[in-house]
């Protein structure tokens, strides 16, 4: 506990007690008011992203035949399609809060899912058995694959953390390098081909399964993971240290925080998230996708930044990142239903990124005044 020289009264009010009043020096006395609730909302980037999401949904709902876009099934399918980028965006947010980034989470995902697929097949049965579509050790195999996803994902994430802290490299450079390395290794292992022979049971039991015949399981898991990460960032020492390191690594170090250890852990944690997202590939599509996901790292950062987390570090908005992650998926799904080329999605997302960051900068500048 704190040692106090002259603490006579327990006054939880922020005003000074009378006995203290005499020796209170008036520093330029902070006049910053606590903002009213509605103003806090209006100033939050996440709120404006939500507004954009609602408007986009309304427009697509209006334009699509029979308003099919705003049917619950469609919306939950969008949620399912967004489940991986949701997890990755949450990871990117945590890293940005610590003033780091990981461009390699997409190719980490590819490599990890490839390795997890190999582990799954080795444990499931002999090559002959798998060829004939029978998996004698299915349960163990699935558990092993989940374990492999977490362990390999975490390991590949941690490697970035080690390069950043031990070799003292910028996170951008470190993860740019590993992005290429992880993708290259995946291609060497797979020759660019998707993994075959993943049991359909994985799709039936998880990837395609829906709670109440409506809510996809992968979406539920993604939301639970995101929610837990939000709680961690907001209420725990780990979250505090992450933001402290991002805000000022020097002062965190001087406060006795072992910043290197934390940075390595943060990278490892985000790698685990990428690994879990990689397992979703196996579960949803019963295959791997070595040709996709390369730009997922950039997409995740885009979502995080659109959601109000800046590259300056020190702050994290996980709800914002979750909303930001929905934008590209919503646009893409809407365009596909409308029969318009889905490539416009990228143009629109880039456009919204500029708007979101511009708003954020304005808000930040006002805040500094």
């Amino acid at each position: 506990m704190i040692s106090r020289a002259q603490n006579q009264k327990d006054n939880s009010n922020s005003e000074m007690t009378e006995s203290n009043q005499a020796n209170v020096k008036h520093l330029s006395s902070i006049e910053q008011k606590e903002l009213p609730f509605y103003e806090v909302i209006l100033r939050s980037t996440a709120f404006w992203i939500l507004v954009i999401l609602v408007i986009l949904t309304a427009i697509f709902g209006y334009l699509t035949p029979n308003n099919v876009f705003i049917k619950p099934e469609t919306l939950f399918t969008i949620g399912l399609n967004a489940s991986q980028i949701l997890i990755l965006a949450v990871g990117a947010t945590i890293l940005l809060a610590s003033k780091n980034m990981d461009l390699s989470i997409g190719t980490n995902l590819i490599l990890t899912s490839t390795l997890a697929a190999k582990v799954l097949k080795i444990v499931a049965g002999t090559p002959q058995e798998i060829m004939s579509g029978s998996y004698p050790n299915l349960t163990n195999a699935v558990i092993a694959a989940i374990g492999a996803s977490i362990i390999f994902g975490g390991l590949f994430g941690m490697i970035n953390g080690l390069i950043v802290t031990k070799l003292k490299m910028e996170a951008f450079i470190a993860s740019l390098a590993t992005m290429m390395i992880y993708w290259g290794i995946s291609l060497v292992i797979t020759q660019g081909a998707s993994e075959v022979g993943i049991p359909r049971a994985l799709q039936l039991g998880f990837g395609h399964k829906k709670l109440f015949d409506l809510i996809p399981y992968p979406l539920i898991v993604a939301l639970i993971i995101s929610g837990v990460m939000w709680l961690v960032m907001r209420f725990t020492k780990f979250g505090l240290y992450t933001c402290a390191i991002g805000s000022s690594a020097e002062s965190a170090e001087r406060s006795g925080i072992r910043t290197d250890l934390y940075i390595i852990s943060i990278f490892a944690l985000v790698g685990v998230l990428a690994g879990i997202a990689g397992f979703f590939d196996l579960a949803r599509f019963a295959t791997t996708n070595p040709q996709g996901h390369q730009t997922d790292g950039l997409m995740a950062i885009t979502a995080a930044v659109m959601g109000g987390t800046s590259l300056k570090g020190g702050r994290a908005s996980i709800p914002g990142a979750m909303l930001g992650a929905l934008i590209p998926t919503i646009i893409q799904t809407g365009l596909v239903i409308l029969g318009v080329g889905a490539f416009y999605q990228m143009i629109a997302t880039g456009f919204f990124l500029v708007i979101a960051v511009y708003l954020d900068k304005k808000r930040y500048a006002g805040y500094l005044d």
Partner: protein
Amino acid sequence: MNICKVDDQIAIEVKGIKKNYGHLQALRGVDLKVVKGEIVALIGDNGAGKSTLAKIICGAIQKSEGELYFWGEKTDVQSINHAHKIGVFTVYQDLSLAPDLPVSDNLFLGREIMRNGFLGKLGVLDRKTMRNESKKALAALGIGLKSISVDTRALSGGERQALAIAKAVTWANTALIMDEPTAALGARQSAIVYDTIRAASARGLAVLVISHDIPKMVSFADRIVVLRHGCVVASLEAKKTTLQEVLNFMLGGRGENKDD
């Protein structure tokens, strides 16, 4: 000579400390004592080695040679964390606080209060208690902030430094080390800082303060230690010395013969 006697008066003792940066000898065998409740001003020209000495005492860097004692006990300070455990806290000219964190989070950074029971084991912070304790600690130091949950970024330079000192004073129970704590401040805000230092020494903390404000140090400190080219060239009782004498030692003149 290494009898481990525990001394309840000498908070910090530095014996024959040397520090080399490659070929450069930043410290060439420094001896220094700071007793309980004493304010020692460390004076010297730029590059004399003041910051280096402060950093060694507070665990930020390792000495090349020599011995460090806290309360008479020989200790090799391994890290800033280690120094914190001994009760030695440091205030830097800047970068002591994380600007994006609220005041109370900053005050408790590195020494958080956790929730009781299971939640605490999960790493959940007790922010409410931290806020209340912060208010009390700041009030006790006579620092009036209207809101404890405001971001540190919103404070003025003086307020930030007062908070950095409050943080160190709150946790220190052996010594307070300050490297130019008022260098970035105006006169009025410096006065607050000096009051805070005075209060800390009255509480029994040993205070080592590095400052370029020599006239102020002559009137404020108990003792003036002059460092020159990595050597202590004078240790003067502040009451019995003059600004002129301190300057002479600092810039050469009478200190010359002790310099090697």
